[in-house]
C-alpha cells in the first residue's frame, strides 16, 4: 500500500489483479461447481448452499510480500495486509440474490455473520467489509452470483469518517447518530419505502445516488454478531422486498453496489458506542437507460450531484411491487 499524504489515506496497489478472469462465457465459469470431466473450477463439490473461499486475485493478503518500491518519509509504504474472500450465493450460474426466497436469505445472513466473527477475531483485522457488486455497469467481471468480503488491517477512509461522525454525535448528545437518523426519517416518512418490525428501508435525506437505499436495524444493533434469530428473519424479509422492488422498477435486474457498515473488530466494543448495523445500496441507474457517473465534480471535488429528489424516488420504490403485505 502507498500512503497518499494529500488525502491522508492508503492506496492499495495490486498489479496481479490485472490478469484476473474477465467476463468468461457461461460454460467456462470459474465459480460454477466443477463438472464431471470438466475443467477444475474454484468449487470441486457439486452441491452446496453457500461457499466462501479466499480470492485468487486478492487486493489484500494474509502474507503480503514487501511493497514493490521503497517508501520515504513523505511517501510511506506498507504491505497490503488483510484477507479477501468470495461468497458464492448459489451453484446456479443464472440466479441472483433477488431470486432467493426469504429462508435462503436468512441462511446467507448467518454465513455473513459467521465470516464477520471468524475474520474479525483475527488480531490483525480492524474492519470486516461485506459487499456485493452486481452488473456490468458496476464493473463486475464474473456474472456467477457472488459477494465479497474485504477484511482490512487498516481502517478504510470512508468508514473512518463515519466513525468520527458517530463519535462526535455521541459526544454531543449521548445518542447514536444512526438511531437519530432512523427517528428523523420515520418521523418524516417521505423517504421511507418499506419497513417491518425490525428493519426499515429508506432513501436517506442526503442520498448521493437517485435510488440509494439504506436498510437499518430499527433497534440499536451494532453488528451482525449482535443479531437474534428473529433479526435474521426480519432482515431477510426486508432485503427480499427491497431487491425485488429494484428489479420491478425498470423491468430488468438492477445493477447495484451493496455494502455493509457495522462495528469495527479491532478490540474494545465500548470504543464504538455509535456503530449501528446497516446496509447501503448504490444502484448506478438514474433512469432505465441513463447511469449516474462519478465524473469531475464527484471524483475531483468529492461533492456528489444528485439529479433527483430522494422524496420522489422513495415514492416510486414505495409504489412498485412487491409490498410487505404480499408475503
Amino acid at each position: 500500500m502507498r500512503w497518499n499524504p494529500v488525502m491522508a489515506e492508503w492506496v492499495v496497489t495490486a498489479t496481479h489483479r490485472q490478469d484476473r478472469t474477465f467476463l468468461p462465457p457461461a460454460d467456462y465459469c470459474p465459480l460454477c461447481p466443477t463438472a464431471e470431466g470438466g475443467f477444475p473450477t474454484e468449487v470441486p463439490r457439486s452441491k452446496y448452499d453457500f461457499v466462501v473461499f479466499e480470492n485468487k486475485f486478492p487486493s489484500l493478503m494474509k502474507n503480503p510480500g514487501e511493497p514493490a518500491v521503497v517508501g520515504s518519509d513523505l511517501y510511506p509504504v506498507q504491505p497490503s495486509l488483510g484477507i479477501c474472500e468470495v461468497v458464492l450465493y448459489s451453484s446456479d450460474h443464472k440466479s441472483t440474490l433477488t431470486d432467493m426466497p426469504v429462508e435462503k436469505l436468512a441462511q446467507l445472513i448467518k454465513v455473513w455473520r459467521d465470516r464477520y466473527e471468524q475474520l474479525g477475531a483475527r488480531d490483525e483485522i480492524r474492519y470486516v467489509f461485506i459487499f456485493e457488486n452486481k452488473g456490468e455497469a458496476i464493473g463486475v467481471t464474473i456474472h456467477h452470483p457472488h459477494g465479497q468480503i474485504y477484511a482490512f488491517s487498516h481502517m478504510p477512509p470512508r468508514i473512518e469518517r463515519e466513525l468520527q461522525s458517530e463519535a462526535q454525535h455521541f459526544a454531543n448528545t449521548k445518542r447514536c447518530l444512526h438511531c437519530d437518523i432512523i427517528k428523523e426519517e420515520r418521523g418524516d416518512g417521505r423517504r421511507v419505502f418499506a419497513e417491518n418490525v425490525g428493519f426499515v428501508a429508506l432513501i436517506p435525506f442526503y442520498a448521493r445516488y437517485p435510488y440509494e437505499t439504506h436498510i437499518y436495524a430499527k433497534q440499536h444493533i451494532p453488528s451482525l454478531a449482535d443479531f437474534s434469530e428473529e433479526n435474521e428473519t426480519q432482515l431477510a424479509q426486508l432485503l427480499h422486498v427491497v431487491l425485488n422492488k429494484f428489479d420491478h422498477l425498470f423491468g430488468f435486474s438492477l445493477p447495484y453496489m451493496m455494502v455493509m457498515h457495522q462495528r469495527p473488530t479491532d478490540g474494545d466494543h465500548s470504543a464504538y458506542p455509535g456503530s449501528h448495523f446497516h446496509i447501503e445500496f448504490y444502484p448506478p441507474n438514474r433512469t432505465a437507460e441513463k447511469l449516474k457517473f462519478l465524473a469531475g465534480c464527484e471524483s475531483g471535488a468529492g461533492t456528489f450531484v444528485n439529479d433527483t429528489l430522494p422524496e420522489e424516488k422513495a415514492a416510486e420504490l414505495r409504489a412498485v411491487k412487491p409490498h410487505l403485505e404480499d408475503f
Partner: protein
Amino acid sequence: MHREVTVKEDGRLLVYYTFAATAAETPAADKGIGKTDKETSL
C-alpha cells in the same frame, strides 16, 4: 448451520456452508474433497 473448512491445493481457504436439507442430500463422493482441517456444526 454446518461449516466445513478445507484448504485448496494452493493453500487458500475454502469453506462450505450447508444447512439441514442440503447436508442430508450431499453425495458421499462429494465429502472429503480437499484437506479438511476443521469441521464445525454451529
